[in-house]
């Protein structure tokens, strides 16, 4: 390649970088405090907007000058809304506050910004090492994580391209534009990066197919159709650091020789759609995307396509069909999309996390990446850990860490001193893993081996009060609804599986049911075309493998050991514990099933009770008089006095 031409790219970018740096420097005025609020979807749901307006009001009332900054999600969902206050004049380092309600916000303005008292009882930690406040980076949750993809999530403003550039963003694209495309493909291949969408196919190999494929026009697609219930890392990345994804896509497009790129995002993620659309406009305005990128001959047109809500569209051939304006039904492979994909063009389809890993791999080299994690699954994995866990949220850890370490050390274990029962990995295509297998390392192959799968990285932790039959039923209900209907086994087979499970959870299970569940599951796996059908029975098969006794209790004893299946459970009030004259539960009952007994204690009318559990929550902890039993006829009968 012509060296003068290279210099042009470098020079063009240098001007952009200088401007971005001076712009961010100008915005960061050291004299006034800076208040940073996490405003991704989860922060907003936890009330970040109320907190923000409380800050603004209080600042105006007190007449204090401060800069409000919006960032994406840092991944610590348990602590939302999260606020970081940098107040240099107070002598303290930047401080991380968690669960900042509007009331706390007003307090902080008065105490910290005005009187320089950081309110030790409300802070989580400091953002850098100091002698006054423990540093958050020393906390287990922060220490065990290794962030590559989410490194800047929650620290930069996703709406401002200059912040990404000032922190070194897009410089990898510049580097790539000056090298041979084939070299990039080989580099990614050497890094051993595997597709983060779930199947774990070698990304470099996919790129190689496309770069060598015949055909003048090629296209790349970013799969952000995150339909897996319980997983939301793609959304978080799109909302928190859109430019990193765009840089990764641009590198890929250059490497395989594509001129068009499509970001496919679920319509259920309006904020993500808005953020990425804005990011594309900003990058185009600076000449980092679009025609003649940075004065070179490389063009890349990026458009956003909104998915319309069909789980099966996460499958690559179905996703392509849906962009083409058809029903999103999977197609037979081969031909693979790499040979003939969207509109018959060779197509690269990669997940949001895969593309977002690329800039770091280019920056640090493939060898650096392949040394992280395990030999066969290098790099980091992002999990959304939710359910019955102390610190739910997004975590990025090196592959190969054990599940036990992840759940108990990184995420704080099970709340309320309850016992661990199972962890569900991989959503509707994954499986439930019991305590005995918690030492399984997290990587593509080890998880497949125990019957679960990496999937998109959704991880739901379940405590001892969770019924595995019910959970299996839930996932079947989901896949049954989302089956596209193309293959008979998937369409009708899942329906039958669901009916059997329905019966079992209602206490109408039959002796032959377990065998039928197993054989039908195997048939569905064999008789389906795409990943949805082939993995749909996984939740049942793993539940049967590891929690068979629970199925048996439902079928033979008509009993739900976890007291979760509502037809098999009853609530009652223990009269020995119920406090005379206390009315806490009465108002909480949505159906007025709670009555007062003759001696002014409470009873539950079983014919009215809908088993919502609200009275159990309402009963003061010192009494804990509301109890659950299964089977329901074990509940003592309390007579309702005549009116």
């Amino acid at each position, binding site marked *: 390649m012509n060296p003068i031409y290279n210099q042009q790219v470098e020079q063009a970018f240098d001007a952009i970088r200088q401007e971005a740096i001076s712009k961010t420097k100008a915005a960061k005025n050291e004299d006034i405090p800076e208040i940073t609020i996490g405003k991704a979807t*989860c922060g907003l749901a936890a009330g970040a907007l109320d907190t923000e307006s409380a800050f603004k009001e209080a600042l105006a009332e007190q007449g204090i000058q401060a800069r409000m900054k919006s960032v994406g999600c840092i991944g610590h969902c348990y602590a939302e809304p999260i606020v970081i206050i940098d107040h240099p004049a107070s002598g303290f380092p930047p401080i991380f506050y968690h669960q900042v309600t509007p009331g706390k916000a007003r307090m902080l303005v008065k105490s910290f910004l005005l009187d320089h008292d950081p309110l030790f009882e409300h802070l989580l930690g400091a953002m850098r090492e100091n002698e006054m406040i423990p540093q958050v980076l020393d906390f287990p949750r922060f220490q065990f994580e290794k962030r590559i993809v989410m490194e800047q999530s929650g620290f930069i403003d996703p709406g401002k391209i200059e912040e990404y550039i000032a922190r070194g963003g897009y410089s990898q694209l510049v580097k790539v534009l000056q090298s041979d495309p084939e070299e990039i493909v080989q580099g990614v291949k050497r890094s051993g990066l595997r597709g983060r969408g779930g199947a774990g196919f070698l990304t470099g190999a996919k790129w190689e197919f496309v770069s060598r494929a015949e055909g003048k026009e090629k296209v790349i697609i970013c799969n952000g159709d995150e339909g897996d219930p319980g997983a939301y890392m793609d959304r978080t990345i799109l909302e928190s650091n859109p430019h990193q994804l765009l840089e990764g896509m641009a590198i890929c497009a250059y490497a395989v020789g594509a001129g068009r790129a499509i970001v496919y995002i679920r319509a259920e993620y309006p904020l993500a759609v808005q953020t990425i659309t804005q990011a594309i406009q900003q990058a185009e305005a600076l000449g980092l995307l679009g025609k003649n990128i940075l004065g070179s001959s490389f063009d890349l047109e990026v458009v956003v396509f909104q998915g*319309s809500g*069909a789980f099966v569209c996460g499958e690559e051939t179905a996703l392509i069909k849906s962009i083409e304006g058809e029903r999103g039904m999977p197609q037979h492979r081969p031909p693979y999309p790499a040979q003939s994909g969207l509109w018959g063009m060779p197509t690269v389809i990669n997940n949001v996390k895969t593309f977002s890993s690329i800039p770091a791999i280019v920056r640090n080299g493939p060898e650096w990446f392949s040394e992280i994690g395990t030999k066969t699954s290098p790099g980091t994995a992002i999990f959304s850990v939710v359910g019955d866990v102390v610190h739910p949220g997004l975590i990025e850890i090196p592959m190969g860490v054990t599940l036990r370490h992840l759940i108990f050390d990184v995420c704080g274990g099970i709340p309320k001193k309850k016992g661990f029962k199972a962890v569900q990995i991989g959503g509707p295509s994954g499986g439930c893993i019991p305590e005995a297998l918690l030492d399984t390392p997290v990587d593509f192959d080890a998880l497949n081996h125990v019957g679960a799968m990496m999937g998109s990285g959704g991880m739901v932790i379940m405590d001892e009060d969770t019924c595995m039959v019910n959970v299996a039923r839930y996932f079947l209900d989901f896949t049954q609804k989302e089956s596209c209907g193309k293959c008979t086994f998937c369409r009708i087979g899942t329906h039958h599986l669901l009916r059997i499970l329905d019966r079992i959870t209602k206490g109408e299970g039959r002796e032959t049911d377990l065998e039928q569940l197993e054989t039908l599951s195997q048939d569905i796996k064999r008789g389906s075309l795409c990943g949805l059908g082939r993995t749909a029975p996984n939740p049942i098969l793993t539940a049967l493998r590891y929690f068979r006794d629970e199925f048996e209790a439902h079928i033979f004893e008509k009993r739900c050991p976890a007291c979760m299946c509502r037809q098999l459970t009853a609530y009652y009030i223990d009269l020995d514990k119920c406090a005379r004259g206390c009315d806490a539960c009465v108002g909480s009952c949505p159906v007025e099933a709670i009555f007062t007994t003759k001696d002014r204690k409470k009873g539950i009318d079983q014919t009215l009770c809908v088993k919502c559990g609200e009275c159990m929550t309402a009963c003061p902890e010192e009494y804990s008089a509301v109890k659950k039993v299964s089977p329901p006829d074990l509940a003592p009968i309390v007579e309702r006095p005549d009116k």
Partner: protein
Amino acid sequence: MTKQNNSDEERIILEDIESRLSSFGKDRWNLIPILQMIQTRHHYLPADAIRMVANYLDIAACEVYGVATFYNQFRFNPPGKHPIQVCLGTACHVSGGDIILENFERKLGIREGETTEDREFSLERVACVGCCALAPVAVVDKIVHGRMAPSKVEGLLLGFQIEKEKQERAKRSDESNL
């Protein structure tokens, strides 16, 4: 609401759609973006709009209908003024999302997928809104409410009722002032 009103409303919707169709190309891959445009602007796809789109793209109406019914995003009946979506993702299910849905059903007297008679509320279930750490979650008027409980359901609906009564009172006092 009278029939006359209904058809007036639909006429306005159809006129709006017609005026916007020309900004889309006529290739097949514009179909889903067009349907999405109609859904976001009017919150449902009227039967006549489906025919209009089919004509515009020169494909059969049953093709359009086939695509529209395949995806979860599209509705075929007008929604309520306050759409309510109850999340039944994994985390929400484990923490009792179905109980929340049931409570809405009971309080509103409708089933999932229906709209109340006065067209104030419509109720539906969604697979996951991506706020799993705040489960169970319900989205009311596009605002996400985390950590739901049956008593919160009651509180939310009561809030709307009070707001409505307030508005009616204000309207009445405005009228009496005139």
